[in-house]
């Protein structure tokens, strides 16, 4: 179908964007890559009255090395982040995870920050941010704040971003030790039925699971002490997956266990 009509705003600066968002209130939405928003609008599942298009805002496309990680701007496309040696040097999990996000044509337009702000619990990048304990930098009328991943995701497609705030960048921390991400989808590029991102550091290990809860589910598995089968059981006990047309809840729990073991092994070997 065709998207419903809306009032279009094309700010040139972050300040103008924040002003337009504040004026639009709850009826306003940010348009960056649009690869999640426009399908929702085409299917009439979303009908925002105002779209604030940030594609012409200067200074949001950067991918910059910072002490302890990499900062990705709100206009950096998935494909740019995937290709970025700066991002890869700081956190190799980012590139590996982006290769699982949809298809190349979608990654050419979609943005990594947009995917995180969309907060789909079935998406890869929110799980990566949650696993790494990254943060989202937001700008509002009252200034700038950094929201840790653990506080950012509050429900399916819901975040602690307030009305009138714009996410300007996310920060992916570097990690000591290895990382990996594995998932199982009916078709390559589809939303995964289950997926697990894992981090194995010298003194701790944890995973972030996608598609098995309202938000990315982070489970600390340090106590498994390298017994990844035991870690898989720990994770299975802590998730509460739902059934849908693609998989039953039991199958999702089973898959998450298998994938947890695989992801942790791969991270330990990385």
């Amino acid at each position, binding site marked *: 179908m065709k998207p419903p009509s*809306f009032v279009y705003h094309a700010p040139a600066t972050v300040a103008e964007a924040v002003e337009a968002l504040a004026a639009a209130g709850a009826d306003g939405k940010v348009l960056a890559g649009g*690869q999640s928003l*426009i399908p929702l609008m*085409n299917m009439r599942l979303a009908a925002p009255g105002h779209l604030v298009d940030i594609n012409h805002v200067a200074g949001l496309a950067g991918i910059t090395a910072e002490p302890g990680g990499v900062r990705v701007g709100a206009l950096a496309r998935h494909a740019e982040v995937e290709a970025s040696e700066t991002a890869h040097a700081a956190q190799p999990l980012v590139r590996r995870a982006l290769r699982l996000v949809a*298809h190349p044509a979608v990654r050419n337009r979609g943005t990594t920050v947009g995917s995180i702000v969309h907060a789909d619990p079935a998406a890869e990048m929110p799980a990566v941010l949650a696993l790494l304990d990254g943060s989202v930098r937001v700008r509002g009328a009252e200034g700038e704040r950094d929201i840790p991943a653990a506080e950012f995701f509050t429900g399916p497609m819901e975040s602690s971003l307030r009305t009138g705030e714009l996410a300007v960048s996310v920060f992916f921390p570097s990690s000591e030790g290895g990382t990996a991400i594995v998932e199982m989808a009916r078709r390559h*590029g589809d939303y995964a039925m289950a997926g697990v991102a894992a981090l194995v550091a010298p003194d701790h290990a944890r995973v972030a699971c996608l598609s098995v809860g309202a938000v990315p589910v982070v489970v600390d598995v340090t106590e498994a002490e390298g017994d990844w089968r035991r870690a898989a059981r720990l994770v299975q006990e802590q998730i509460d997956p739902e059934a849908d047309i693609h998989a039953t809840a039991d199958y999702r729990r089973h898959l998450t266990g298998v994938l947890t073991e695989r992801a942790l092994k791969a991270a330990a070997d990385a």
Partner: protein
Amino acid sequence: MHDVTLIVNGVPRHARVPARRLLSDFLRHDLGLTGTHVGCEHGVCGACTVLLDGQPVRACLTFAVSVSGQEVTTVEGLARDGQPSAVQRGFAECHGLQCGFCTPGFLTTATAFLRDNPAPSDEDVIEAVSGNLCRCTGYQNIVKSVHRAAELLAEEGP
């Protein structure tokens, strides 16, 4: 209403359209370029894929107003001097299409892919076209077509 100007296949084209006009409909309805096909209209099928500043994107997941001033290549822009491009010839030679509905998306996708990766493996080709659906061919001939196009491009030289 918004003034939108795009460089479409090398030619500046203008129309005054509502903000909600999708790039796919801008090309088809406002510019009369019906080579770009609209299948699912929510980003799944890939039939509407066009090149935006050289990169494949879903025209059905792009607002025309948002990309005003940028360059778009559609399937109509692939031929040179009235001759089908190497990619188009590859698809014709290897029966990479049957009904042809999905073909514009495959051709634009393969054109950008072979520009960036002129000697791809089977795996590379499958990954490159994984975002495009075809209900006729079973994909085998599409993969062959892309490999054949790579050969033809290599023969053409730079």
